[in-house]
């Protein structure tokens, strides 16, 4: 009993490949467990009675009806969500998770169901209030280089807040490393509080998230500024996260999302929850 932790560690390492291999066998999907974070409104959250609500909860219900499967949506802490999927605790992730090459090393994604540009949020009376606003696809290398050249002197020495392990953190590291001081936060709530407290000069995040920042108390003093970044390392938008082995489930979700995009369901839900259309480009 006393040796349990060490024994467990050894056993876990020894049987990990077995456990993963066991899930590789094809199965007939009748019920699917979908994990969400439950604390990232308007994508997903809880109401005061403890019920899951949000854009992704409604979308999951719609997709599951199209796939003719019973879905069970559960809330899971963001930190353990990818390990939990691979350990088999649930079969899919719908938690505003951006499709990125790094994540695709460990899991698969359906086609994206939302794509929301990333941008900066600043205080209206702060030093970065007048960052030039434009649209910028990071796939366009020449335009990106020109924009970085314009932005770097403006951001020089400024403190920028960002949530840890996000595509926006990768963006700062790739294009503005050295010029700015990056401060990482566990949650977006925390960097919003520090922006209002004046501890950071700007925060970078997804425009769909900032809708809620502007709506909350004190949000009237915040504005969005700088380029609306898309593409490149920001990925293709948010998709359903799935185990590598479950290619059949991946095809089912992709088909269902295509249908929901085609008949305007995603646009309708997006307008309902975000007040703006964040359907992916194509």
């Amino acid at each position, binding site marked *: 009993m*006393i040796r349990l932790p060490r024994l467990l560690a050894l056993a*876990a390492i020894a049987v990990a490949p077995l456990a993963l291999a*066991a899930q590789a066998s094809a199965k007939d999907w009748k019920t699917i467990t979908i994990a969400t974070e439950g604390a990232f409104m308007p994508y997903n*959250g809880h109401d005061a009675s403890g019920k899951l609500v949000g854009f992704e909860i409604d979308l999951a219900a719609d997709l599951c009806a199209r796939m003719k499967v019973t879905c069970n949506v559960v*809330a899971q802490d963001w930190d353990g969500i990818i390990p939990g999927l691979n350990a*088999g605790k649930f079969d899919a992730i719908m938690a505003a998770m951006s499709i990125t090459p790094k994540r695709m090393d460990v899991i698969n994604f359906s086609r994206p169901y939302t794509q929301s540009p990333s941008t900066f949020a600043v205080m209206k009376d702060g030093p970065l209030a007048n960052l030039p606003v434009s649209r910028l696809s990071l796939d366009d290398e020449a335009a990106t280089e020109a924009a970085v050249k314009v932005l770097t002197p403006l951001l020089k020495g400024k403190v920028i807040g960002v949530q840890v392990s996000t595509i926006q953190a990768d963006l700062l590291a790739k294009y503005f490393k050295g010029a700015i001081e990056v401060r990482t936060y566990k*949650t977006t*709530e925390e960097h919003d509080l520090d922006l209002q407290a004046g501890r950071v000069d700007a925060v970078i995040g997804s425009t769909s998230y900032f809708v809620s920042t502007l709506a909350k*108390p004190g949000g009237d003093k915040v504005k969005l500024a700088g380029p609306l970044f898309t593409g490149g390392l920001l990925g293709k938008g948010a998709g359903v996260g799935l185990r590598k082995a479950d290619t059949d489930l991946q095809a089912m979700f992709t088909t269902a999302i295509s249908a929901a995009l085609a008949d305007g369901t995603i646009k309708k839900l997006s307008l309902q929850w975000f007040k703006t259309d964040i359907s992916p480009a194509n």
Partner: protein
Amino acid sequence: MPDILASLTLLGFGPTGWGLQLLRATAMTLAVSMAAYVVGMAFGALGAWAKLAGRAPARLLAEAYTTVLRGIPDLLVIYLFYFGGSQVLTALGHAFGGEGFFGLNGFTVGMLAVGTVSGAYQTEVLRAGFLAVPKGEIEAARMAGMGRLLMLRRIIFPRVLRFALPGMGNVWQQVLKESTLISVTGLVELMRQIHIGAGSTHDAFAFYVCGFALYLALTTLSGVVFRAWEGWSLRGEPRVAGRMAA
């Protein structure tokens, strides 16, 4: 400044208030902490026995247990139990012809993980408590012809408790605070509920302050209980100035 009145409604018990959820989560924190404490107490008693009276292998095992578990972060132990444990169980389940996923729920994992860590501290607290009991008292009990069990019940248990209680109170406070780490398993204890509330309503400040107050209430209340228990364990002791201050 956030609107105080709006925040009060948010944390209240009305139809849009999170009061009930927060109370439920507080009860969950208390439940999982108490379960972990009991597990830790069992491990601690076993560890202390092994260190004090065990043979060489048992002593070595107990030594390894306290050294390793006190030396690594609790969060790591929780991850190991939660993800490592489910992989082992799933593999075992499949080996016996089962299908799908086998695993422990957040409550069980949290109880075992935090309990195992607190057991390492409890081992030392109980061992020190035993060593503080004057040898003469045990010899006197033996001289009076008490059997092992009677001596354990009448002399050793109450005397060790009297010396170990302050340390045991500290271990409890530690368990209570470390229970926040169990939130990573998705168990809706107080810390996770605060995170959910903050992320769902975007009024983070109200939820943080509320969490602060609830945790402080829990720890303060526990302090009162342990002080009363300590007072009780000191009954019959000579009332030296300061000793009964509690």
